[in-house]
């Protein structure tokens, strides 16, 4: 039992750390924190990563990826968070690309992967449908063959950044079978196609990132079908497993915890500092102690992955516990800042507490989604009950 990295991994860690230090410039940092023109800033950052060859973290080397081990990915992700650098926008590089390089044909790989690597194509995800929620297999968007094309009709919802996406990858119904999971196909659709309408969904964080995407007889060439017709569910499931890695968000949580501690060192409370208030300390350590446990839960899963094992049931807990801890920290950050966390002002208005307060509010409000998307925590508990407890 030990917590040691190999010397190669230590070297790798130092290399990554040095990279973030030089690449994530104060200029870029200021842009990211301003929160304006998200897309161009993201592209600037992603191109820096790609120039280094570190953008496609999950891809094999032969298609332009890093080919990293699970531990290397973990080190990279940890260092990124420590540096405060933003995550990549996942829909292209992390979500559709693995499906393309695993299940797509050579032409599709050639056509799509390079443009994902250079962030030329911006992707969004068309899985959920109005009324279906966590019950993905209930999807009703239909794709009907029409000559060499499909005609797609239906609606997708919760589509992040659809308003600025070039492509959408969709699960669509191409057949009717007894088992609902059958008859689903995986289709890539050009967002410029005629018949697509993007309706913004304003969310409770007072921002707009979500959308409904409505398809009205949208013509999609059959060459955009991934793999075999009616087998899309299988591909999507494989992708969902991909999604789970890093979902615990430990490194992010650690950053928030540090921020809360710093804030509490600046806030007065009962004539002392907030950080010295035992009641506050207890709120903080309630979370920090759970976070310490989560860190080692994640490391245990990672160690199993690294030694080629399939992680056991404990990996299923990472999402539930991770999102619960994230939400606790988001709330405590608001409580730490106090009344200013109700401010809608994003910039340094009057004092930096407005910006920090507003950021904390946004994170809290939008953070409510973390226990809902990607299979709500209720669905996760159902899954664990069945798989883990043998119920």
């Amino acid at each position: 039992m030990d917590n040691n990295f190999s010397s190669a991994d230590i070297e790798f860690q130092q290399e990554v750390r040095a990279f973030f230090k030089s690449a994530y410039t104060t200029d870029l940092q200021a842009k990211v924190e301003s929160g304006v023109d998200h897309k161009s800033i993201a592209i600037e950052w992603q191109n820096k990563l790609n120039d280094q060859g570190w953008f496609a973290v999950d891809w094999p080397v032969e298609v332009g990826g890093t080919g990293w081990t699970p531990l290397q990915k973990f080190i990279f992700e940890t260092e990124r968070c420590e540096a405060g650098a933003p995550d990549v926008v996942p829909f292209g590089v992390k979500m559709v690309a693995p499906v393309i390089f695993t299940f797509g044909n050579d032409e599709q790989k050639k056509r799509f992967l390079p443009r994902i690597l250079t962030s030329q194509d911006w992707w969004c995800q068309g899985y959920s449908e109005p009324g279906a929620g966590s019950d993905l297999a209930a999807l009703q968007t239909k794709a009907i063959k029409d000559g060499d094309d499909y005609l797609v009709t239906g609606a997708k919802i919760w589509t992040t950044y659809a308003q600025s996406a070039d492509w959408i990858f969709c699960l669509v119904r191409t057949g009717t079978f007894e088992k609902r999971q059958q008859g689903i196909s995986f289709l890539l659709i050009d967002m410029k196609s005629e018949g697509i309408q993007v309706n913004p969904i304003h969310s409770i964080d007072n921002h707009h990132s979500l959308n409904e995407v409505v398809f009205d007889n949208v013509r999609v060439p059959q060459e955009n079908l991934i793999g075999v017709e009616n087998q899309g569910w299988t591909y999507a499931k494989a992708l969902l497993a991909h999604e789970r890695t890093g979902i615990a968000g430990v490194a992010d949580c650690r950053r928030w915890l540090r921020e809360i501690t710093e804030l509490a060192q600046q806030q007065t409370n009962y004539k002392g500092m907030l950080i010295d208030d035992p009641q506050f300390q207890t709120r903080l350590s309630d979370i920090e102690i759970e976070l310490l446990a989560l860190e080692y839960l994640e490391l245990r899963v990672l160690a199993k992955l690294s030694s080629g094992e399939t992680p056991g049931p404990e990996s299923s807990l990472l999402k539930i516990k991770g999102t619960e801890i994230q939400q606790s920290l988001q709330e405590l950050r608001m409580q730490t800042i106090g009344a200013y966390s109700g401010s809608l002002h994003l910039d340094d208005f009057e004092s930096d507490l407005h910006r920090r307060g507003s950021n904390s509010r946004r994170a809290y409000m939008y953070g409510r989604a973390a226990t809902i998307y990607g299979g709500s925590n209720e669905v996760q508990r159902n899954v664990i009950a069945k798989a883990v407890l043998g119920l």
Partner: protein
Amino acid sequence: MNFEYSEEQVALKESIARWAQDNYSFDQRRVGAVSDNGFSKDHYNTFAELGWLSVPFSEENGGYGGSVVDIAAVMEEFGKALVVEPVFPNLILFGGLLERSNNEAIKAELIPQVIDGSLMGAVAMYEPQARFDASNIATTAAESDGGYSVSGHKSVVLGGAHAKKIIVVARTSGAQTDEDGLSLFLVEADASGVEVNAYPLMDGQQVADMHFNNAPAQLISELGNATLPIKEVLTIAHVALAAEAVGLMEVLNRTTVEYTKTRKQFGVTISSFQALQHRMVDTFMSYEQSKSLLIGTLVELTDERTTPQRASKMVNALRTLVAKNGKHIGDEAIQLHGGMGITDEMNIGHYHKRMMMINLMFGNGDFFQHQFNQVAYAS
């Protein structure tokens, strides 16, 4: 022994509920909420016409002579309707301090204007360095030309964006965190030396941070002796906010139960899932707890046998519980609405944001629990 609102109070509540039903749908409300003021002056004038703005004022000042129970009845109903018009800052804070002023001329002039809806006021009390400590006042007042001028920095002044007159809490003696030595001054919002930096809060209300730089001010309390009126007003303010929160809770729970009865997943309504049923029983319990403690606080505050210590215990218990249960109910409402819960188009997000704002106003749950602990256990 009776824990129901009186017939008059029920009638008052029903008149608010009826008005809201007819005039204050989610979309109608929104018109005011997204305007520059953050509320509708027309609605506010209607409140005046219907007499609601007179509730907290004594009869000798032209008011309805309402008790804290009457105020709670109104605020609970306003909570249910998610009323965004600035009843709280105008009536409870500004009006509350006016009502307790020793300056009879000012009272005679201004209270009628508050009651008829023509005067918008605000109380500038809390300061950026003070967190939730209402006694931590660095703002000072100096005599000048037979009057006073105030200087200092005030944060998150409710109603501050649209107030014409501001009551400023300033220190006229003692050290910065002394409980005593505070005085109340009336300042015109457009006076020289007054800088009002307005901004919206998450619940839509327009507030302001304020800077006073030798702003001309009129003393409206005993000099250095405003601690009692401030405490009295804060007590009523705490109960008013709690009552509003109880109203919010009721709607959040009802809306969520109704949603789960219509929303289908895996072929059945999600209300059929036992795990969700039990969670909704728990939110129902959180509501009933909060409502019960609100009622308990009301009966004890209006009972002459209640000691100040006991009153403080009840009020702090109430706000502690409302903070905890409000978060519980609001978070569960969003979670059980699933994706819909995080959209701006459902009302529950708005209710929850108002709840969160209430639970940051003049203290958070931990603050109130600390106060409770001090009163209940300090040896």
